[in-house]
């Protein structure tokens, strides 16, 4: 369907649009017009991706400057989904417009997924593929070949050089499969095609890391211009991604390997001195002039990346004492030896970067400045030495990155050395965490560089937490709900068992027999009444294991076994995927199964339990983080000091976003239904931290239930759901045809400011207080809605309103 938002013509590839999708697009457009950042929350299964893409593509085509879209998602499957969605959209646009637009959409993923080289693609591990690919494609290998040496080259990569550099692949949207097929036909490398075509694309779809991880971003995302539109989809964990991308862990083993790497470098340098001294001299001369010049020689094949460096550093020349290769190697050796001595402590040490640096200087005479250049200097050296087996130098690179980071950032980082793995261990196994405490550091360049950044996900509540944590200001902040004609999901909070004893995963009570028994009863009852799949989330593996063993002893599992097949998630990915497969089979053949998993595990994040795969989700206990971790404590402290976020606020926010993720697993669309049970007395106080769309469905009377009461309302709900129901019933309120949409637009124009009802009709979240008021006027509203559905007597209605 084609409709207008203000002056912008939007082509939407489906005949009907959800009201929340329309509102979502309006807000997106508002953001793009205003040129700022925004945070949007819309429930999963309401077509977020397609509305995003269709609006932004329409915006691109409508405005002459053609702002590029960078769409970042979390997993490979989500990226593929987005690409397929984009392909469908472009096909629809072509059909509607009658001509093909000059448009390119590409996805980028790792070499491993895009390799065509007959022997390299058979490698299992991603790093091996990367390393082997580099040894076949690096610039110096080609030079060697030209000099007539006998070296192997990748044909697929070579063929790219024969093509026009800006037209490696014809316009259109290319899914990964499409890229691979095209590459095979034309004998060209899909990975490098995508990499080199990035400046000429209208839409780029790739993983967060290509933009956030400074080690990769420097190489991949450097040429993107300032007016790009950046979208972070599934962004509820974005702060953790940012932090992980700047945190480094070093162990004794990795330091040993780093020493080995340094010794290798040393040997290589000696070798090179005897064979090709001019090359080293050449590098030296470049470094004397300054890093920038050396930088220019670098191409997409650069081996190792440097972490985020301030620009002034790149313009400066490398300090004299690490200019010569052998000096630099000795410098690294000294630094690694120093780290080794630091690892020999017997008590936990946590230290700020300045204190570390001053101790380092006292002991080894390493100044801060050469340390800052460490990563960059190593990259340059590795390039000069023409090393191909880069994976051997991985630990060394980590050490160099660590050196650069610790000397670049004074605040927002903490060095924690833990000599023992656990509190009870007696054999030291030291680990050095260099942890980033401030998520804003990694994402700051993104917000600064791009004028519009859109952060969106199904669960982002409370919305203001993200701008505070990531330190940006946004022009639009909105939460949407699902507009529904019937209640398709039933959230409930269970705070006690049938015996009136509390239900909680609080540390002091979690192993009490009555708590375990109540959790057991809850599971048994819901397994009895739920038709197909039941998914159960526990706060941690540890607790899950202990409670399962207790249930085993008390016969709970035997009881459950009568109704459902029991499957358990484990930390092992292969075992878990096997369990998932069995679970799906059991659900498909009608018996149903129960899957016991962990709220922070793989299942809770990436796996969808749509329709009969998940009819009930039980969240047993509040999924708090492990609070005794020193890294977490340091981060909480930092958040309190810097962003004025209280520890308890953050912990509960974090727990609730994971709980919301778990709950969101079962509702994947408007015709899906399911029961959501939050089983912990502490949830009662955290209702406001749930996403708005769950909050609005959560009745006041469903917030303090015992197990048998919950069973009662769940039974009633399921009975309601079993009433035959057609999609036609949704029309008018929860899906709009073109006429209905236009009616709404007209009405909106007449109104000016949106009232509560209109906000609801558009699927925008309204406060719960407003909801309460609505309940009282429910009767009148129903009739009104029916009238809207008709749409013929609209003018009359408009007249009524104006009056």
């Amino acid at each position, binding site marked *: 369907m084609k409709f207008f938002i203000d002056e912008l013509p939007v082509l939407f590839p489906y005949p009907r649009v959800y009201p929340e999708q329309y509102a979502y697009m309006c807000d997106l457009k508002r953001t793009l017009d205003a040129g700022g950042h925004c945070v949007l929350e819309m429930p999963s299964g309401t077509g977020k991706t397609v509305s995003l893409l269709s609006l932004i593509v329409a915006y691109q085509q409508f405005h002459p400057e053609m702002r590029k879209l960078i769409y970042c998602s979390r997993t490979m499957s989500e990226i593929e989904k987005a690409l397929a969605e984009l392909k469908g959209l472009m096909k629809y646009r072509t059909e509607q417009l009658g001509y093909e637009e000059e448009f390119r959409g590409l996805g980028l993923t790792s070499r491993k997924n895009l390799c065509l080289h007959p022997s390299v693609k058979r490698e299992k591990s991603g790093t091996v593929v990367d390393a082997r690919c580099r040894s076949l494609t690096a610039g110096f290998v080609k030079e060697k070949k030209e000099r007539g040496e006998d070296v192997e080259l990748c044909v697929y990569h070579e063929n790219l050089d024969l093509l026009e550099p800006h037209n490696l692949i014809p316009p259109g949207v290319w899914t990964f499969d499409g890229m691979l097929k095209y590459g095979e036909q034309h004998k060209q490398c899909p990975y490098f095609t995508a990499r080199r075509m990035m400046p000429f694309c209208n839409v780029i779809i790739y993983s967060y890391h290509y933009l956030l991880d400074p080690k990769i971003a420097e190489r991949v995302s450097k040429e993107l211009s300032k007016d790009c539109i950046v979208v972070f989809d599934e962004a509820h964990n974005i702060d953790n991604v940012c932090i992980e991308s700047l945190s480094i862990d070093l162990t004794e083993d990795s330091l040993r390997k780093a020493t080995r790497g340094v010794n290798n470098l040393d040997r290589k340098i000696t070798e090179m001195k005897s064979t090709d001294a001019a090359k080293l001299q050449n590098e030296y001369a470049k470094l004397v002039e300054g890093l920038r010049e050396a930088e220019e020689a670098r191409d997409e094949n650069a081996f190792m990346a440097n972490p985020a460096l301030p620009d002034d550093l790149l313009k400066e020349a490398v300090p004299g004492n690490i200019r010569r290769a052998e000096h630099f190697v000795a410098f690294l050796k000294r630094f690694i030896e120093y780290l080794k001595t630091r690892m020999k402590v017997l008590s936990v040490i946590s230290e700020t970067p300045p204190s570390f640096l001053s101790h380092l200087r006292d*002991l080894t005479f390493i100044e801060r400045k050469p340390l800052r250049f460490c990563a960059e200097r190593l990259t340059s050296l590795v390039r000069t030495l023409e090393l191909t087996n880069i994976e051997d130098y991985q630990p060394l690179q980590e050490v160099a990155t660590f050196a650069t980071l610790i000397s670049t950032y004074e605040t927002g980082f903490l060095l924690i050395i833990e000599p023992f793995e656990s509190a009870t261990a007696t054999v030291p196994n030291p680990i050095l965490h260099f942890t980033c405490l401030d998520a804003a550091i990694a994402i700051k360049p993104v917000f600064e560089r791009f004028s519009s950044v859109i952060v969106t996900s199904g669960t982002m509540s409370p919305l203001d937490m993200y701008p505070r944590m990531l330190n940006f200001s946004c022009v639009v902040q909105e939460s949407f709900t699902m507009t529904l004609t019937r209640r398709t999901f039933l959230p409930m909070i269970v705070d006690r068992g049938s015996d009136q004893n509390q239900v909680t995963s609080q540390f002091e009570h979690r192993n009490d027999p009555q708590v375990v028994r109540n959790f057991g009863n809850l599971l048994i009852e819901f397994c009895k009444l739920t038709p197909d799949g039941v998914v159960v989330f526990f706060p941690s593996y540890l607790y899950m294991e202990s409670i399962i063993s207790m249930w085993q002893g008390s016969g709970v599992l035997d009881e459950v076994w009568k109704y459902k097949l029991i499957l358990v998630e484990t930390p092992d990915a292969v075992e878990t995927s096997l369990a998932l497969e069995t679970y799906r089979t059991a659900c498909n053949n009608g018996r149903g199964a129960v899957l016991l998993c962990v709220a922070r595990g793989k299942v809770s994040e990436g796996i969808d339990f749509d329709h009969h795969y998940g009819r009930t989700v039980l969240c047993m206990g509040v999924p708090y983080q492990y609070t005794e971790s020193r890294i977490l404590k340091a981060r909480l402290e930092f958040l309190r000091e810097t962003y004025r976020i209280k520890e308890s606020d953050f912990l509960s926010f974090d727990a609730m976003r994971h709980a919301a993720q778990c709950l969101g697993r079962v509702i994947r669309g408007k015709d899906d239904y399911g029961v959501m049970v939050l089983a912990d007395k502490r949830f009662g106080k955290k209702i406001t931290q749930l996403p708005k769309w769950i909050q609005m469905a959560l009745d006041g009377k469903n917030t303090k239930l015992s197990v048998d009461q919950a069973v009662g309302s769940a039974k009633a709900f399921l009975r309601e759901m079993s009433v035959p129901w057609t999609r036609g019933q949704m029309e008018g309120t929860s899906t709009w045809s073109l006429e209905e949409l236009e009616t709404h637009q007209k009405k909106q124009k007449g109104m000016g400011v949106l009232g509560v009802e209109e906000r609801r009709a558009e699927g925008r979240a309204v406060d719960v207080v407003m909801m309460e008021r609505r309940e009282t006027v429910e009767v009148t509203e129903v009739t009104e809605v029916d009238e809207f559905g008709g749409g013929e007597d609209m003018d009359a209605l408009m007249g009524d309103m104006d009056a």
Partner: protein
Amino acid sequence: MSKAASRANGASTKRLAEDGDICPVCKSSRYLNPNMRFRVNPECYHRMCESCVDRIFSHGPAACPIAGCKRTLRRARFREQTFEDLKVEREVDIRKRVARVMNKTESDFETLRDYNNYLETVEEITWNLILKIDLEATEKRLRLWEEAQKAEVESINSTVSRRLHTATDTVDPQSDTARVILKKSGVQRKALGPSSANTPEPGAMDTGLKDTGFTFAGLKKRVAPEPEKPFDPYGGWNIEPQYYTVMDDYDVDFISGAKTDVHHLAGGYDIRDFYSRALCEAFSGFGVFVEEEVIARENQASGDVGVGTQTAATVADGGKEVNMDDIF
């Protein structure tokens, strides 16, 4: 000796020895003596356990017990090893020595590039010392450089003190206040150190011709700081009386009685205080012209602050335009 140890106890001991858990001198291992601690001497960097150190070196200097090493070691210089790698330990010691002598910072150089070149030279010197290349020559150059640096610092100090003396000479030696002030400023100058100012001044350096071991391009000359002027609490105003001099005695009738009066003298009364007080009161106000001051004030009030400050400055310089006797 280590060979014997490995032969006796097989491969496992060898590994232990590599880990550094067996003393190469007495062959006791950590297994036998859990509190064993190792010491090294920066003379030759051979490790031995603490009890060996006590045993061999407690009666004064002795030769290193490790085969092939004949250096004489002293007990006092044994210390705990900081780094696992003894090569690095030695390197760091050498660096410590070099860093003490080669201690220029970026601000001592004209350009960043000169500083980087300097850093590289320092690194090369360190390497020469570590790898024992040209040991003699490098040591000699290092020594020369150290001396040159020392001489430079000394010459600066001497200029400073010379200036100090000349400054003292110009001031009236009789004036106690001036001397006290000068002493204070001397202390201040010492605290400031030799590298605070860097305006080049001809004649301050006379060691340039000597061989200093190294020459660095772009190194700013070390220059003695400008001597501070003696502190003047009155901001240049002349407080000496201008229209009279107080004499020791005045032969006037009406005070001759008071001079010898026991009642006055008992209270510690000094007749000269009376003289100066009386004269001051008599002459104050001389040379103060109210009209001129009013005009000056009006000028200042009309907003001509620049002129005001200028007059103030000339006054502060001790000019004779405004005579201020009236210190009260």
